[in-house]
């Protein structure tokens, strides 16, 4: 494939804005654009927005080799309950699995804090008289007449999608498959999702919920992708459409249409991919990617250049960030944390009498007070402005002047006045509290993975990330922070970096003493074959690489360690690796406790076609000359002091300077406190060393 004059195009549809990025492979030029999202049919906004690139790169359309797309459509459809009318076939006796959830309440002390209503109402949950045992043997098979009756009922009710989730189908999917065959024959117009296809894993509630979410969004996503595909073709794009999946890989539009639940994290995951690229390019063993935008902050600990994967995703949490308040979607996704903390997060005094920041956000409309768009509640951006971190005359590339007086009076009225603080003390409290909230969530994320934040390099991006990175790092005792170029819009670039990829998980619960390499090898080969079929045609010059893993745990323990294996796993080797990994994670290991395999994992990636980081030419001098100075708040000295102001455009590889300083670029501002030392690396990234000290 020729790369001469090739382009790659990315578009990321968010709640408010759609971000566009066009990369010219030969010149290395990157064009970035932003348009309002059209929520009714986002493909309309995409097609309109793309016209903008025709001005900067006239003939890019025919020469575009990749159109990569991320969308929050799926998550939003569930949150707003705009999916299809869905029915669920269950094992008789278990009609209410979906409604009973795990019987747990959302919060401990609130009497009216209810879990969300199930996506399938009870009248559309249809029990089928079938049963499989936990060893896979079938007690009762599916009978045709019963499915016929169900179809009649579903047709009469106007059902648009069907989910099928029978007990123990992860061991033996035969009954589900038979139901699927009959439904395809009797109701070919209705989209069907089988639990054994989307998630062949033990635990009926989580599997049923996952299957239902998939069914619920399937018709919507199919329609949307078809419109988008047709629209792109009509304008002349010939490159196939690729969709960002929650696991950090790109999938075909066919995968996305069949398994739309794989798109739940499609939007947020791009930032983690950027983090991985930096970790791989610079060989950083422990990297904490930190992406802070207007509404939320996302963080992801990337070890040894690999994206961490979780099966514990939840969508549409009713209490936005409270665990168990949403619908479990237990398919592999990048393990990230998302916190309701961004530039637009609103500061209030809560019932505890404490300053609380977020999760409510002023968003883009009305926005922070200083935007002058009618916002009256003080936000993080207002605090950052008063602390001297933001330049009122140079914000968002100078496109917007900030109203400092508005921020001042808002912070005084809501916080400083009632608490008897000065406005600077109050502003610092807001900045410090939002950092504490993020630090708490990051610590939890790292603890869950058995890591230590102190060992990580924090890589900050997003509009607000570089403003908060230094003080956040200092809370987490992190000694190195990196801020890449174009930090404010970096995550859209992640789309162009991701390889096509798909992964599968299958439950195989067997004690290690009964480990049968032949069986496991055969199952994994079957999984690899399915993945190959799914990735077929996504080649684009890459080669297919498989990664195999087995989840191993002590018998009875509910958490497992994913032990990497090759395609022909060996029992002794697995035990040794399990021991090593377990000991590393928890600091101890039991020789005397039996272990078992729980899940088999196979990941297929098409590698070799990724975008690479571009080096910048070095400057002539090693000395960075500040463009000016202004007062800003030093966390270290707990006071306003004189900060140097650097223009990022003027910084070249090899330069270095010390804090206190702020570095301004079009899309983001970086804050470095007194004691920080900055070097510009060969890619133009700011590499900041912190003195990690214990205040005493």
């Amino acid at each position, binding site marked *: 494939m020729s790369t001469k004059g090739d382009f790659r195009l990315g578009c990321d549809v968010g709640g408010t804005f759609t971000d566009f990025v066009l990369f010219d492979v030969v010149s290395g030029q990157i064009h970035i654009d932003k348009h309002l999202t059209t929520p009714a049919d986002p493909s309309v906004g995409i097609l309109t927005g793309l016209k903008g690139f025709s001005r900067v790169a006239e003939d890019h359309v025919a020469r575009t080799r990749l159109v990569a797309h991320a969308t929050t459509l799926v998550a939003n459809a569930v949150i707003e309950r705009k999916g299809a009318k869905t029915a669920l076939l269950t094992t*008789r*006796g*278990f009609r*209410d*699995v979906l*409604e*009973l959830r*795990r*019987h*747990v*309440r959302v*919060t*401990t*002390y*609130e*009497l*009216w804090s*209810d*879990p969300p209503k199930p996506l399938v109402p*009870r*009248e559309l949950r249809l029990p089928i008289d079938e049963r499989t*045992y*936990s060893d896979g043997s079938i007690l009762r098979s599916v009978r045709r007449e019963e499915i016929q009756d169900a179809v009649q009922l579903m047709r009469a009710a106007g059902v648009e999608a069907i989910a099928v989730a029978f*007990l*123990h189908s*992860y061991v033996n999917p035969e009954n589900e498959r038979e139901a699927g065959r009959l439904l395809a024959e009797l109701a070919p117009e209705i989209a069907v999702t089988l639990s054994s296809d989307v998630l062949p894993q*033990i*635990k*009926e*509630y989580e599997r049923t919920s996952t299957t239902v979410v998939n069914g619920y969004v399937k018709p919507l996503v199919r329609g949307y992708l078809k419109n988008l595909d047709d629209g792109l073709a009509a304008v002349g794009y010939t490159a196939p459409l690729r969709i960002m999946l929650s696991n950090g890989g790109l999938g075909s539009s066919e995968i996305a249409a069949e398994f739309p639940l794989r798109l739940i994290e499609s939007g947020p995951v791009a930032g983690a991919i950027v983090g991985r690229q930096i970790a791989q390019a610079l060989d950083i063993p422990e990297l904490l990617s930190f992406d802070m935008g207007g509404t939320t902050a996302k963080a992801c600990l990337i070890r040894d250049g690999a994206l961490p994967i979780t099966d514990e995703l939840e969508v549409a949490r009713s209490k936005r960030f409270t665990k168990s308040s949403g619908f479990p979607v237990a398919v592999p996704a990048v393990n990230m944390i998302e916190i309701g903390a961004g530039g637009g997060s609103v500061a209030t005094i809560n*019932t*505890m*009498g*404490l*300053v609380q920041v977020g999760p409510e956000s002023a968003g883009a409309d009305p926005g922070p007070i200083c935007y002058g768009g009618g916002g009256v509640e003080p936000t993080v951006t207002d605090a950052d402005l008063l602390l001297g971190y933001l330049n009122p005359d140079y914000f968002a590339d100078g496109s917007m002047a900030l109203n400092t007086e508005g921020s001042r009076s808002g912070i005084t009225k809501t916080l400083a006045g009632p*608490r008897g*603080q000065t406005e600077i*003390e109050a502003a610092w*409290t807001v900045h*410090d*509290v939002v950092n*504490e*909230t993020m630090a*708490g969530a990051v*610590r*939890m994320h790292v603890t869950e993975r058995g890591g230590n934040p102190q060992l990580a390099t924090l890589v900050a991006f997003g509009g607000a990330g570089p403003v908060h990175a230094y003080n956040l790092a200092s809370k987490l005792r992190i000694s190195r922070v990196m801020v890449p170029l174009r930090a404010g819009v970096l995550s859209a670039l992640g789309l162009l970096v991701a390889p096509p990829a798909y992964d599968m998980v299958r439950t195989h*619960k067997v004690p290690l003493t009964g480990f049968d390499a032949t069986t496991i090898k055969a199952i994994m080969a079957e999984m690899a074959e399915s993945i190959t079929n799914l990735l077929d045609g996504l080649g684009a010059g890459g080669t297919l690489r498989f990664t195999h893993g087995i989840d191993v745990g*002590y018998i*009875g*323990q*509910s*958490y497992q360690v994913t032990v990497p294996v090759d395609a022909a796993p060996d029992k002794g080797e697995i035990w040794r690796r399990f021991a090593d990994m377990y000991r590393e*994670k*928890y600091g*101890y290991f*039991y020789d005397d*406790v039996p272990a078992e395999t729980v899940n088999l994992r196979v990941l297929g990636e098409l590698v070799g076609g990724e975008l690479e980081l571009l080096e910048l030419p070095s400057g002539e001098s090693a000395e960075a000359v500040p463009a000016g100075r202004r007062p800003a708040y030093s966390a270290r000295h*707990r006071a306003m002091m004189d900060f140097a102001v650097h223009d990022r455009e003027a910084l070249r590889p090899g330069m270095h300077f010390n804090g206190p300083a702020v570095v301004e670029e079009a899309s983001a501002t970086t804050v470095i406190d007194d004691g920080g030392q900055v070097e510009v690396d060969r890619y133009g990234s700011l590499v900041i060393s912190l003195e990690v000290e*214990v205040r*005493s």
Partner: protein
Amino acid sequence: MNAASNQPSLDIIWPRLIAIADEMATTMFRTAFSHDVVEVHDMSTGLYDDRGNLIAQTWLGATGHTGVMPVYGQNLVEAFPPETVKPGDVFICNDPWLCNGQTADVFITTPAFHEGRLIGFAINTVHHVDIGGRKGSGLSEEVYEEGLIIPQLRLYDAGVPNEMLFAIIRRNVRFAEKMIGDLRAQIATGWFGSREMERLAAEFGMEDLRDPAEEIMSRTEAGMRAGIAELPDGEYSETMEMEIDGIEEPQTLAMKVTIKGDELTADLAGTSPQVRRPVNCPINYTRAYVALPLKMVCDPLMPNNQGTYRPLHLVAPEGSLLNPTFPAACFWRLAAGMLVSELMFRILARIAPDRVPADSGSMPTWQFYVNGVRPNGEAFALHQHAFGGMGGRPGEDGLASISFPYNVRDVSIEWSEMETPIIYEARELIPDSGGAGEFRGGLGQELVLRAHEGHVAEGKPLVLSGSAGRMRFPPQGLLGGQSGSFGVISVNGEPIAPTSSPEVRFNAGDIVSLKLPGGGGHGDPAKRDTSRTRSDLEAGYVTPAGARDDYGHEPA
């Protein structure tokens, strides 16, 4: 606190302390062995200051564990005065009268130091998979039958494990590997919590945690007091009857609440004497379930800590069901203990009917074991939780089959069937079980169990034992709402005698059904919005007969 001083502000310290407790819980989930911890969340974590005052707690966790922590802190510092506490100590206790009213709940506490000075303790509690004894029998007459009782002891002395104690525990429990594994997870959780407290003190250069502790407790206390002060002064009494198998007459639980200004006294005089069945509820657990409804109604948003309990006074006659004396059997104390919450809700309903649900079939939780033997002679034990329906609430129906006011999860049926040869024929909501009302009671659920034939030893009976209730006295409605359905346990369709601590023997081929009670209705059923009744009918939450009888609803 003055934010301008060098002291860190409470805005940072308070959330950090709660975050440490949450992170302890995460550490525990990652390292524990049993479903009771990882899946069910029958555990909790928290932090004490150096005087044993509870200052932070995880947002998760079973409400018994969380409600007992404040008093346990006082017991701890009494047993181990500060001058005797050394870095590396690990304290253990499960004495039902000092801890959580049940031998299976083991408390582990670890101290934290700053510059050589004791600043506090990290506490964590776990319901263990086994503690010896009769394995949760419903027939125990004394606590001696309920397994090992560990008084306040050092499990580690200055970092050195007490091997004798470990050996005693190991030799006394079933599934010892799992039990010791969970105990090790508790120790790791404790050390994690202590280390984080020490880091916090070092980061902000605090001599101890007393200043923020005082502020946290007094703000929480003020929140509770403000909530209580809103309730009119007065005296309110309620009683309930409780059925206990093997005891002729139902036993009485009585409560008199006196509200005076911003303080509340609950007096349990009139409660029946303790019984020779495992449903006696030691006072710590009783107190937890007096406080819980009060917190839910008066101040649900404030974090739980020592301050929550300060405006609350409890008087309970010694030797009664709700304050039994040693050696009363108490393994299934939740059967009586959770009814204490029901009494409290009933009283609060009279004071503030617009803020309180009707009776809930979810009190008590039906927690049970099924013990049996496989054909190869190996013992197995199924452990499960089942829940009735919440009472109808002003403005909203009660939640169906929900862990209320407890807050734990079930064990997945697939996982349960994978691990034990007990097959679930059904777990489903029971139509018409929710009491009729303008706002309907939440539905109860039915579980149907049988042995997997050929997978259990022939001729060896299986035993289901646990907590239950409302089998004779169903959850009542409120303000004209009707009662929810009774609880029923039956074998092959034959109901057993009403009881609070069932012990049911059955054989392969038998069908055991547990029908959990529905919640009481709230308000006059005649006032129910007909669209609600129609959608209930469509969903099958009520049957056509039920709609006609309860709501006068004739099919269109």
